[in-house]
Each structure stands twice: as structure tokens, then as C-alpha cells.
């Protein structure tokens, strides 16, 4: 890693803005510390292994300065249909800032404690999270440092022990410029929550969202975290999501990455205590000139932990994507079970997909497997459909849809699954015919 930032580095343009951010004392010094560490590491390039397949050069000419507060009206929000999907309790963040007027709350504080980073900062309270707890050399955590330096707001959600509040829906709306939402979710032991996040853009805004989310799933707690990413054509989303799961806890992440110009999710899950489990499932739809990248790191740090990953990517048009998944089984994590499945379908002449399903195993009592395929539609399936009189275009669309269906079926929040399905269908030929099938 080079110690001195290159002059062309987009970070250099951000430096003067740091001083204007809110928060005194400890918050200020934390921002500076994170900033300096990021600066020392530099923005990732494709020479960094974890970023081999995701080139950030498109940031060079972007406006990364945090967008000024831009309150929006309920009417404007209503125009974004996905904002309404799912969730009983709803929190709206515009360019990373909370919009109190648009919120709707359906659970008493005894079962759901809601706050925001802005409120925490304003009250001068200490950081409820650990913006940078892990890797000291920052290679994997640069997005977190970047976000931590500039984040001014974001949801802080806590579910008390054994509480099971109704679903929470967090809407992230980007209107242009930089946004740095920071999210912290904590489930105390035995708690359960269904959390839905939607990322969308108002119009065709050129927005750059650098998001960081910390999730803590306590002993025996259960979190289902569903993300619908339907950003506009000119939006960039870089998200770092760090999850820690306690004894017997269960974390599920569902991702429908459908929009944006370039999206990358870094998902790190640490199964910290015995019996912790994680299930990850995502679909990456890279059509047009879109790029969809996912990197996962699942660390089995305790005995009898299990992980299951299922990713399906479609490369259409000139789309690109990657799945880079690593499973690490630590010394002493006996009884680990881990499955990884990543399959990518290329249907565009100039589409490309890369995958890297990795295993790093340091214990012997384990069962780990991964399977990865990349290729075109199965000719036998295609022929079967043709031989039943289905036309070639519909048959291809149908098989493409079915390919992604495996992931969509795992979406437990009905409205989100519907929204994701409709989005996928809308991108395929013969959409009308297929819709009938889904209905």
C-alpha cells in the first residue's frame, strides 16, 4: 500500500470538507483518525486483491462532497414506488440524513428503540458502534473508514432482549452528490427482527453513496435483513456491511442488486460463538453497462457454526459483475458446515462475470463445499421449451427468470420479493407473458 495519496485521488478533494462536519471532541478526533487511516491506505485499486474485479476509477470525476440537506415532500417520495414496499415501521433517509416528517412508527420503545447518529452526535454521546474494530491495515475496511469520516446520520436501531417488533423498513433516497449513511443494528439476546432496506434515487441523479452498516445479532437472536437496491442509472453504491453473530444467533441477508451504474457490497460476517448461523442469498443483475459486485467474507470463529451462501448473477448487454466469496474456518471451529454456491449466466455478447469462491480452512472437523458455474443457458432446457411451442425469446427470458428465482424464493418479505420480481421481469423480453406466470 502506498503511504502517500496520489494527487488525482478523489479523496484529496474531500479533505477541506472534513472540518465542516458536525460533532465535537471525541467525534472530531474519530473522524480525523479514520480519515488519516484511509488517506494512508488510499482508495482501493484493481491491484488490491479484494478489488481486482471492481474498478473504482469512475469515482475520479464524481462529486463526492456530502450533499446539502434537501428535505423532500411526501408526494416526491410517493413517486418512488419501492419506498412503500414492506415494513410497518418506516424510516426515510435522504442523502444519508433522517427525514423525521416522513417517518412512521408502529412499535413501542419497549420492543424497538430507534435513534439516529445525528441525534447521538448532537447529544455528545459516544459512538454506539465500533466504526473500525477489525483489520488494522485497513485493506478490507477502507469503505468503513471513508464512511466513518463523513457520516453525519443514519439509523441506530436496537431491539431489546426477547422482543419481536413488527418489521422495520429503512428507505435510503439519494438525490445527487455524496451520501454517507451509517447504520447500526443491534439485536439483544433472543430478539427477532425483519429489516428491509431500500436504496433508490430520485430521478436520474448522479449520486455516490458510501454506506457502512454494523449489525450485532445477540445470542439466540434472529435477524432477516432484506435489501432492495434499485438505484438509478447514474448512481454508485459502495457499501460495507459488518455482522457479528452470537451463540445460536441467526443472520439472513437477502440482496436484490438491480440498479445503479456501479454497486459493490462488502459483506463480512463473523460467527463469533458456538452455534451461530448465517445465510446469504443475492441476485446480481448486470445489464446495460451496469456493474454489480459482491464480496463476502464469512469467518467461522467458533464450533458448530454454519454458513450458507447462494448467489446468482446475470450479465446482459455489456454488464459486468463479480462474486468474490471467502469462507475462513478458524482453528478450533470444529463441526463447521459451510456451503457456497455461485452461478452466473451470461446472456450479453459483451457481458463478463468473474468469480472467486475461496476456502481457508484451519480446522479438520469440517464440511465445506463450494460450487461455481459461469455460462450460457442450458441448451437442453431451451430445447425442451421450444419443443413445447414456446418461442425462443420467451424461452430464454423464462429460463433467465427461473435462474434468478432460486434467490427470489428466499425473500421472505412478500412485498419486497414482488418488487424485485417485477423489476427483474421488466428487464426481460416477453415481460407480459412472464408476468402472468409469476402472478
Amino acid at each position: 500500500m502506498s503511504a502517500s495519496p496520489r494527487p488525482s485521488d478523489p479523496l484529496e478533494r474531500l479533505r477541506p470538507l472534513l472540518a465542516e462536519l458536525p460533532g465535537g471532541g471525541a467525534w472530531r478526533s474519530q473522524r480525523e483518525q479514520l480519515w488519516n487511516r484511509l488517506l494512508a491506505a488510499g482508495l482501493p485499486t484493481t491491484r488490491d486483491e479484494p478489488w481486482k474485479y471492481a474498478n473504482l476509477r469512475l469515482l475520479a470525476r464524481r462529486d463526492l462532497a456530502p450533499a446539502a440537506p434537501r428535505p423532500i415532500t411526501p408526494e416526491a417520495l410517493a413517486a418512488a414506488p419501492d419506498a412503500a414496499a414492506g415494513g410497518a415501521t418506516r424510516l426515510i433517509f435522504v442523502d444519508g440524513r433522517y427525514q423525521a416528517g416522513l417517518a412512521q412508527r408502529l412499535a413501542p420503545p419497549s420492543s424497538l428503540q430507534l435513534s439516529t447518529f445525528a441525534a447521538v452526535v448532537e447529544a455528545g454521546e459516544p459512538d454506539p458502534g465500533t466504526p473500525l474494530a477489525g483489520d488494522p491495515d485497513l485493506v478490507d475496511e477502507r469503505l468503513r473508514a471513508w464512511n466513518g469520516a463523513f457520516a453525519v446520520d443514519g439509523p441506530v436501531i436496537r431491539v431489546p432482549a426477547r422482543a419481536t417488533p413488527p418489521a422495520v423498513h429503512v428507505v435510503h433516497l439519494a438525490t445527487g452528490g455524496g451520501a454517507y449513511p451509517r447504520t447500526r443494528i443491534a439485536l439483544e439476546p433472543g430478539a427477532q427482527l425483519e429489516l428491509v432496506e431500500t436504496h433508490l434515487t430520485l430521478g436520474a441523479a448522479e449520486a455516490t453513496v458510501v454506506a457502512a452498516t454494523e449489525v450485532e445479532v445477540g445470542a439466540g437472536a434472529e435477524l432477516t435483513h432484506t435489501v432492495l437496491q434499485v438505484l438509478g442509472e447514474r448512481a454508485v453504491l459502495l457499501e460495507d456491511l459488518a455482522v457479528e453473530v452470537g451463540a445460536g444467533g441467526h443472520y439472513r441477508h437477502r440482496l436484490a442488486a438491480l440498479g445503479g451504474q456501479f454497486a459493490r457490497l462488502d459483506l463480512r460476517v463473523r460467527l463469533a460463538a458456538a452455534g451461530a448461523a448465517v445465510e446469504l442469498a443475492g441476485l446480481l443483475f448486470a445489464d446495460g453497462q451496469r456493474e454489480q459486485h459482491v464480496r463476502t467474507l464469512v469467518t467461522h470463529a467458533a464450533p458448530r457454526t454454519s454458513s450458507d451462501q447462494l448467489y446468482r448473477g446475470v450479465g446482459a448487454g455489456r454488464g459486468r459483475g463479480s462474486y468474490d466469496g471467502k469462507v475462513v474456518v478458524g482453528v478450533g471451529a470444529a463441526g463447521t458446515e459451510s456451503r457456497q454456491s455461485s452461478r452466473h449466466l451470461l446472456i450479453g455478447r459483451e457481458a463478463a462475470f468473474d468469480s472467486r469462491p475461496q476456502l481457508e480452512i484451519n480446522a479438520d472437523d469440517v464440511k465445506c463445499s463450494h460450487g461455481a458455474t459461469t455460462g450460457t443457458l442450458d441448451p437442453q432446457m431451451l430445447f425442451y421449451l421450444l419443443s413445447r411451442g414456446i418461442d425462443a425469446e420467451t424461452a430464454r427470458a423464462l429460463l433467465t427468470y427461473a435462474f434468478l428465482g432460486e434467490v427470489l424464493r428466499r425473500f421472505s418479505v412478500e412485498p419486497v420479493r414482488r418488487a424485485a420480481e417485477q423489476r427483474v421481469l421488466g428487464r426481460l423480453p416477453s415481460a407480459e407473458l412472464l408476468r402472468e406466470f409469476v402472478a
Partner: protein
Amino acid sequence: MATPPNQLDDLVSQQYRHGFVTDIDADTLPPGLDEDVIRLISRKKQEPSFLLEWRLKAFRHWLTMREPHWAHVRYAPIDYQAISYFSAPKTNKDGPKSLDEVDPKLLATYDKLGVPLHERARLAGVAVDAVFDSVSVATTFKARLAEAGVIFCPFSDAVREHPELVERYLGSVVPTTDNFYAALNSAVFSDGSFVYVPKGVRSPMELSTYFRINEAKTGQFERTLIVADEGSYVSYLEGCSAPQRDENQLHAAVVELVALDDAQIKYSTVQNWYPGDENGVGGIYNFVTKRGECRGRNSRISWTQVETGSAITWKYPSCVLLGDHSVGEFYSVAVANHRQQADTGTKMIHVGRNTRSTIVSKGISAGRAQNTYRGLVKVLPSADGARNYTQCDSLLMGSECGAHTYPYVEVKNPTATLEHEATTSKIGEDQLFYCLQRGLSAEDAINMIVGGFCKSVFKELPMEFAVEAQNLLAVSLEGAVG
């Protein structure tokens, strides 16, 4: 279920069977490397000037390079100035003309190693080139091969006798600038094997080279070049061993294969360099670059390797599939026990249309060893209809070892089909118990189960090597389960 501990503890590491030193008079350069050393090596070998220039270019580039550290291996820094870059057994000035002229002590060494150099060679129908430290000492069956038009000789002979072939193909697959160790090898390589199979010729026998490092504080830098002209076929085997020393020795070889239209090269390796002792003292650093180019239509290159030796292995025998309908294959068994570290795998680069590749990798980790599969399958936009199948399995024996899998799958053509499967698991306890219940010893049971695990690779080896490989596996894993 636990394996009976006492029985297995008794199996603790047997001595490295090939760990003897042959006491012969050797001509060895003092340690150190600069341009003068390279000039001296080149002069000793009476090389044409193109080769000296080529070496110097490689050396100058090497000076600008840094040792790679991305592999999953750890070792103390290597002092490249403390290594001797040339060691040759002192024999008649012009080298042995036939087996009769070879130092009998040396022949006895090969006997001990089990190299079928003499009558055994004839029985096995194998032509052997033996490389002792840096110099090729004997090539058997030269005459019979010559009859068929096959050139099989020490690299230095090829430089003298077939300079046009050497100049044409040397470095054409692995350029001098390719990587740190390849650059070093290009600068200082002393000998190795050269094979040329002319158009339409099927080599009448298996060709084989046996490598041995004998001298202390020397590195071995052999260079192998195999060219299979249109429509030809050759199967080539290499074996290797080294004495047991408590220092680390560097082996940085380069192997280049070229297959033209409809040609086929089958390259098999049984690598048994000294792995160091159970505490990780000594052993060979095996940093090798092996690559084949399927240049012609319908050409085919198969790599089969059984890697049981070396303290550290860093090698990725690869295929560049240029010709339409060409085929690349990689079959590997890598065993790492005690403190061994292996980082091995392959690269399959699909350039031509309808190119196919198969990768089967079986990794076995025991003791406190680290065993890594690292592989790249890359399909370029030009490779319409490319196909790859990869199967990559790891077996763990012991809670302190590591098994790692780092596959890269990069696809830039929508008509390609790639499939990758990997599993990692502990040696099957129910299988083990079943065997024990039927009266097998734990040792036999393990050998049987591991043998079964590796079967799909062993079957790719020529018969006599398959037996040797199976035996080596058994020896390497002694004391592995406790």
C-alpha cells in the same frame, strides 16, 4: 470416533528415504551472483553469444523485480548471494559419452534412488536423462530415439547441436520477464532436458528426467523445453529428490512446452524433494514455473503431478490454449505433512475457439502443514464455445493443518461453460472405522482411503509412476493421523 492413538503415534514420521549425500568430486562455483557469474556459467557451457545475451537481459530484469509474496506460504528471507549457482560433478572434461564413463558412485546413487537408469530402464522402456545438481549426466536410449527422429538430450547439448531450435523456442512460452523466479532461472540455468518430436512422430518410449540436488548450499535451476511438432505425441516424466540437509535449498526450474497442430504432450511429475524434518528444519524451496502453449489446432497438453516433497512448493503448471479446439488438462495430488507448505494449482487461459480444459486437484493436509490450491480459469472474448470443468477437493488429517482453495474464474465470453466444484472435509471417520472393523491396520486403512481420494489423478500417470506415487503417498503420510 477416534482413531486408536497409540497405533497411529507409532507411525510417526519415518526418515526421508532419499536423504543420503553422494561423496563425489564436484566442480562448484563459490556463492554469489553477478554478471561475471553468468558469463562464467555461459563460458563453462561453451554457449553461443545469443544465449549469453539472453541470460544477461534476464538478469538485469531480475534485479528490478521483487520476490512475490502473495502465496499462502511463510519463510525467512532468502539470501540470493549465499547460493552457489553452479555445481557439476567433476568427470572427464567433455562429460560422459556413455553410461560406462559415468562415475560409478553416481550410478550407485541413482540405483539407491530407484532411477531406472540401467537395465531397469530398458525393462521399463523409459529413456532417462538424469540431472545431478545442475548438470545432466547421462541420457539413455539416445540411439533408439534418434532413429525415430526424436531429440532427447541435456539442454546444454541441445544448445550446441540444435541452436536454431533452442533460439526459436527458448523463452517463447515463459519469457525472461515472466516472474521473479523465471527471470532468475533464465539468468543462471545450467542444464535440464530438451525434447523435440518431429512432425507426425509418436515417441517410441516414455521420456524421463531425474533431478537430484546433491551439493550443499547450491541452488538448482534447470530448464526444460519440449516441442511437439505437428501431429506428434510425447509422454515425459520427471522425478526428483535431494539429500537431507538442515538448510533450505532453492530449486527454481522453468519448464516450457509447445504443442503445434494436432500434437500432444503429456507431462508427469513425481516431486519428492526433501521436505524438511517434522519441525520444519531444512527442505527444498521448490519455486517452479511450468507452462505449456497449445499453439496448434487440436493440440493437447496434460500436466499430471504428484507433489509430496519440498518444504515449500510454489508452482502452477499452466496451459495457454491458443489453437482452436485445443485441450489443457491438470491433474494434481499435493500432500503436505508436518511443516510443509504447498501453494500449487494451475492456470487455464482460453484464447482459441472451442478450447477445453479440465482441472482435478486433490490436496491432502496433515500435521501442521498448509496446503493451498490456487487456480485461474480465464476465458477471453475470442474463446467461443470454451469449456472448463474444475474439481478441487481437500482432505484434512489433523486439527492443526490448513487447507485453502483460491480459484479465480474470469469469463468474458457468453458462449463459454465453466463449472467449478470444491469440497473440504476431514478424512471419513466412518470409512476409517469400516476398514478397521474389517481388520485393516489404521495405516493401511488411511492409505486405502487416501488412495481412493487420489485415484482420478493416479490413473493419469504412466503405470510405473502410478505405483511409485502410491508408495510415496503412503510414506509421506506416515504419522499423519493422531
